[in-house]
């Protein structure tokens, strides 16, 4: 009677020790993540509610929701929200996603050398460092750049793209750079569709579009979901590409949220306000991240 709880406790102590020992290898990663990722996120949530500035005052004070109130009354902030939305819809939702799916579908039918060549070119654009991609597209869209040269050659009207349609130029740049990812995801997904299914539909006389709509798309819907989420999250945090091409300008006509955040925090030294913007961006990102996890829920 008296020994039973004792051995039970000893057993539990043993199990706890074993669990701790087994968890030990996870600790370096956990410490790094806590210190350098969770820490800054927590700090972000704190200074977003202060009036911390870079210069002048040493102390910052708690200002509650002032930064957020200011943001939602600030035309330049709302402009950045709108441009981020346009940038995301144009480049990720429409551009990368649709073009990636189109490329993957065409690749299923194309001859091998052309498939390989196209794949290599599109993937190279993806592997290039962000800033290099920015410069290449800067050269492409400039008034004296390649796009206008091509348009001139075709006798089409040319214009100063970076001035007239800066947000469109940076969106195209993001499509150029990011499509490879969707292409790879969709190629993998399409390869997993059993041949018999599409062939059966073909024999039944279903046209290409109908097959796409009724068979292919429903079968790869999970890939579409995760790809859309990941593209969107990627696009939300694009900074270097736009910075190199336009610096957010002219004026603020290509200033998405990350660039607005940078300008407020550093060029205007309002760290508190800039962080409030960052926190909002983080919240939107978290929301997308949660949806993405729901889509993947069976995986873990």
């Amino acid at each position, binding site marked *: 009677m008296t020994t039973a709880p004792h051995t039970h406790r000893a057993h539990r102590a043993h199990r706890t020790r074993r669990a701790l020992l087994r968890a030990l290898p996870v600790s370096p990663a956990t410490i790094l993540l806590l210190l350098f990722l969770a820490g800054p996120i927590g700090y972000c949530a704190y200074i977003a509610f202060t009036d911390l500035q870079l210069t002048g005052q040493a102390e910052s004070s708690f200002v509650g929701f002032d930064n957020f109130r200011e943001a939602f009354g600030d035309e330049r902030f709302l402009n950045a929200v709108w441009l981020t939305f346009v940038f995301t819809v144009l480049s990720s939702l429409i551009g990368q996603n649709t073009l990636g799916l189109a490329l993957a579908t065409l690749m299923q039918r194309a001859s091998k050398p052309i498939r390989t060549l196209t794949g290599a*070119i599109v993937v190279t654009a993806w592997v290039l460092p962000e800033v290099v991609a920015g410069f290449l597209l800067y050269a492409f869209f400039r008034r004296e750049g390649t796009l206008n040269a091509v348009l001139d050659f075709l006798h089409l009207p040319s214009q100063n793209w970076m001035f007239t349609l800066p947000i469109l130029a940076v969106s195209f740049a993001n499509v150029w750079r990011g499509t490879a990812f969707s292409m790879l995801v969709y190629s993998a997904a399409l390869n997993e569709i059993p041949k018999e299914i599409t062939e059966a539909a073909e024999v039944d006389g279903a046209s290409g579009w109908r097959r796409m709509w009724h068979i292919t798309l429903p079968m790869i819907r999970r890939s579409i979901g995760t790809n859309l989420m990941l593209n969107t999250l990627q696009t939300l*945090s694009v900074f270097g590409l736009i910075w190199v091409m336009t610096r957010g300008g002219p004026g603020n006509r290509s200033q998405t949220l990350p660039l607005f955040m940078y300008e407020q925090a550093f060029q205007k030294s309002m760290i508190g306000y800039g962080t409030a913007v960052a926190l909002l961006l983080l919240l939107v990102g978290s929301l997308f*991240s949660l949806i993405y*996890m729901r889509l993947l829920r069976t995986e873990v």
Partner: protein
Amino acid sequence: MRVTTKPNRLSRRTKHRLAADAGLLVVAAAFVLPLAWVVLSSFDPKADLKVRLPDSLTLDNYDKVLTPEITFTPLLNSLLLCGGGTLLTVVCAALAAYPLSRYKSRLNRPFMLTILFATSLPITAIMVPVYALFVQVDLIDTMQGTIFFFAASQLPFAIWLMKNFMDGVPKELEEAAWTDGASPFQSLLRIVLPLMGPGVAVVTVFSFVMMWGNFFVPFMLLLTPEQMPASVSINDFFGNKGTVVYGQLAAFSIIYSTPVILLYVLVSRRLGGGFALGGAVKG
């Protein structure tokens, strides 16, 4: 019946293939123009912003940028930052993935879910607080601080990938080693990691490529020009110095991009394309 329909079907298939080929070629042509510009301009003594065949070829542009100041120091800095960051990431991820993959625990699922959540957070958003934090703890403008942050930002995805690859190594092989008296650490080092070699290669190359191309992190956390990696120093070609020598900018872009392209080719060859990333995220 059969004999008459067969050539017909074949030709329809050929037609489809030709249409697909044409479609792909159009996209490829549009995608290749910016790439062609950088390659051609780097050999062009009179390079400007247009893509065109140079009248004469020269290596002058390469010659001009291959100096310690313009190329070697920034590339060395990049190597130090990304090499250090990658090493830290891969070691921590391999260690963390092992118990997650091998032992059952009630904490595994919440941990992996948190990791998955962190995988897709927009890291750009936290750069302002990271800067403010680094100023307070005196990590600003230090290589080690930037390396730590690089590693932390890459860790969630690295752990996620590493654990998935590790799950693919059968446990039986280790059990034999355990009966021979090997510790879990020894079996991880001698059995599991060698068996998942391609997986480790993917995590390593992917982390390195992500850090090599990253602009915002060193742009924010490093201040001294001598410490800047190539992703930031490339900016010096622009703005500050008045006229831009596009030929030299192109040559530098090529030198700076070559390592990551080679690494990518190396890994994707071994794994048969797709970088195995398609498989890792397709859900």
